[in-house]
């Protein structure tokens, strides 16, 4: 009952609180831009030194102890150059800085600090500004955008025309997968190599995934990077919105990462061609990959961050269709640290009944793993492994693999017999541990320098029998018959009565 009593007094209190909030909101709305400039830099300093300095450095120069490992590098605040802004002036507004601190920067190591109180975050904003006071002398002016044009097939079509006319593909690639011809040349303002955004992965956009965010980036450009402003460089002002709508149409706002891989039961043949229509009928399960940082050489900035998996089986075979982005189909040249692009799918050597699984990083001496591997130039092979450097190719490899590479994307089908004696067998209804590894040879990845997943589960969907077409209609028929019988009996009774 204490809760009830609390609710009464709490109700009055919350009414007061609401009133206070409303008046605060009114004050905020009434105050012109710059209302956010209320942080206390001195208070922000303490928090900065504890939370921000490990990457951004005590001096704000982006040279904290962790900076060396990070790509993109932490921001150097002393230059006052910031990527994300909604201003037409060079410096971001306090609100822009606050938003980055609050929401983090997707696709980078900058985490979201929403757990800190707003006062704390505003204090950090104020402190960050003190590293480049000259840049913030000028009051920020909001970047004006033409009136919003919502997404529609026409807008997306016009956006695509503009995308081609203004040659976004030069950096972002024909289909937006960050594989444009200028990609290898791009450098940031500090002379460090920088990658263009993969437009099909909106969830990695530093300033947010919505068409509004995209339109703003197109208008302001991204300071400190090669991304220029396009506000005066489109045919008509509203083209900014058409472009934003087109970019937003290139991929989902969120990857909706899968937790389970389901293999679909199929009656007919499993097409070996990765571009076969068959594969488009299966929804992909997006699996997130991370850098291998357990053994040397570590891969803190992995190139492949996701593999989209489709799996299917029939009475004889099982097939895995893998799709992943890679900017270049690399020709191995070890002298230039260029290796073959590769991918592998990992299973335990024996699928046991218990929860025990081999060590996720390609097994260990105690328990090995079984790998379905594919390497550009070499094709598909089978192997067992007892660790990332102890891989033993299987002599009687039966797996087949066909890959295609187009516009910064690999599509691969790996196929083998479903039931085998010398390798794991895949039976319907059984949860089989599965893991993935990928190497972008063009980014210098080879051996332990890879991106990978820990264990997931693969489940072969149980084949559906024809009974579903027979049993429900039969039940319906019997029900109707029973009802008719009851009605008839009831009528007879009434008549007799």
């Amino acid at each position: 009952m204490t809760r009830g009593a609390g609710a009464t007094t709490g109700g009055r209190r919350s009414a007061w609180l609401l009133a206070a909030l409303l008046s605060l909101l009114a004050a905020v709305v009434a105050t012109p831009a710059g209302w956010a400039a209320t942080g206390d830099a001195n208070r922000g300093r303490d928090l900065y030194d504890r939370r921000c300095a490990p990457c951004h450095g005590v001096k704000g120069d982006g040279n904290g102890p962790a900076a060396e490992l990070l790509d993109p590098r932490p921001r150097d605040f002393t230059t006052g150059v910031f990527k994300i802004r909604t201003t037409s002036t060079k410096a971001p507004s306090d609100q822009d800085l606050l938003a980055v601190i609050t929401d983090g920067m997707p696709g980078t190591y900058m985490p979201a600090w929403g757990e800190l109180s707003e006062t704390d975050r505003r204090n950090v904003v104020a402190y960050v500004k003190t590293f480049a006071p000259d840049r913030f002398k000028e009051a920020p002016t909001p970047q004006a955008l033409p009136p919003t044009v919502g997404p529609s097939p026409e807008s997306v079509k016009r956006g695509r025309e503009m995308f081609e006319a203004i040659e976004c593909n030069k950096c972002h690639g024909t289909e937006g997968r960050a594989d444009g011809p200028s990609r290898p040349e791009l450098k940031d303002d500090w002379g460090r190599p920088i990658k263009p955004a993969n437009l099909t992965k909106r969830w990695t956009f530093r300033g947010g995934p919505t068409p509004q965010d995209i339109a703003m980036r197109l208008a302001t450009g991204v300071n400190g990077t090669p991304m220029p402003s396009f506000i005066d460089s489109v045919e008509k002002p509203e083209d900014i919105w058409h472009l934003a709508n087109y970019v937003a149409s290139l991929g989902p706002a969120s990857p909706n990462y899968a937790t389970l891989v389901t293999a679909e039961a199929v009656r007919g043949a499993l097409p070996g061609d990765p571009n076969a229509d068959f594969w488009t009928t299966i929804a992909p399960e997006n699996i997130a990959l991370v850098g291998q940082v357990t053994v040397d050489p570590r891969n803190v900035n992995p190139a492949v961050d996701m593999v989209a998996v489709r799996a299917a089986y029939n009475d004889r075979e099982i097939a895995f269709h893998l799709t992943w982005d890679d900017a270049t189909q690399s020709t191995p040249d070890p002298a230039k640290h260029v290796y073959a692009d590769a991918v592998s799918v990992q299973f335990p050597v024996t699928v046991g009944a218990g929860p025990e699984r081999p060590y996720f990083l390609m097994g260990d001496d105690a328990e090995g793993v079984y790998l379905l591997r594919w390497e550009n130039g070499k094709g598909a092979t089978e192997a067992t492994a007892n660790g990332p450097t102890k891989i033993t190719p299987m002599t009687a490899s039966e797996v087949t693999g066909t890959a295609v590479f187009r516009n910064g994307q690999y599509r691969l089908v790996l196929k083998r017999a479903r039931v085998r004696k010398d390798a794991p067998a895949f039976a319907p209804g059984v949860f089989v541990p599965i893991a993935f590894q990928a190497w972008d040879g063009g980014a210098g990845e080879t051996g332990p320098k890879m991106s990978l997943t820990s264990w997931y589960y693969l489940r072969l969907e149980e084949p559906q029998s024809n009974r579903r077409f027979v049993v429900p209609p039969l039940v319906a028929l019997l029900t109707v018959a029973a009802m008719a019988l009851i009605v008839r009996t009831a009528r007879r009774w009434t008549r007799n009565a």
Partner: protein
Amino acid sequence: MRKVLAVVGAVALTVAAVAFVGLPVRAGAQAGGTIEVEVRYNGSPVIEDVKVNKDVEVCGKEKKIDKIAVGPNKGLADTLVWVTDAKGPATSKPVALDQKGCEFHPRVLPMPPGEIDILNSDGVLHNIHTFSSLNPTINKAQPKFKKVMKERLEKPEVVRVQCDVHSWMQGWIVVVPNPFFGVTDGRGVTKIENVPPGKHPIEVWHPLLAKQAKEVEVKAGQTVKVAVELKK
């Protein structure tokens, strides 16, 4: 009221006419001298070979970028010479930086503070990305249909220009506060005319070499020749 307007108009017109005709006359009346500077470089030319992987129809398949262009008699091209102390009216000649054949023309462009036209003669996407400390930096896309962009550079300084799409494209705009400047030609020679008589410090600057300062005595109606050698 109309009369007053007419009188004001007439006065304004006369002032304008005098200003228009009179100013060049006065400049001529100053009877300045000419500084002819010959810049030499004893090292070997630096040429960067670039294999082009895009827009080959306008950029060509291979580019030779003259980072340090040395002509006959060791003459050093693309070198800016300017009289640092002389004061004079800024020339109102329109200044243009062209992007042609995926190169900046000219590579070194001096300009008075004010407006500059940025041209895209190539018909492919370029982006004008400037690196400066006093002037606001610019990073604007210039797609094929955007033939001219007008920008302003108000503060005297060296502004590096880069196209990120074609990263070999590097240029330098130098905002000079007076009209007494010149850029050396393929022989390493430039002439600065109408310099007020007297002793003047001059500065010789190449984007990739150490700059040099010198003092020159200018005599009215005469040409004073100066030889300078730049080093790394």
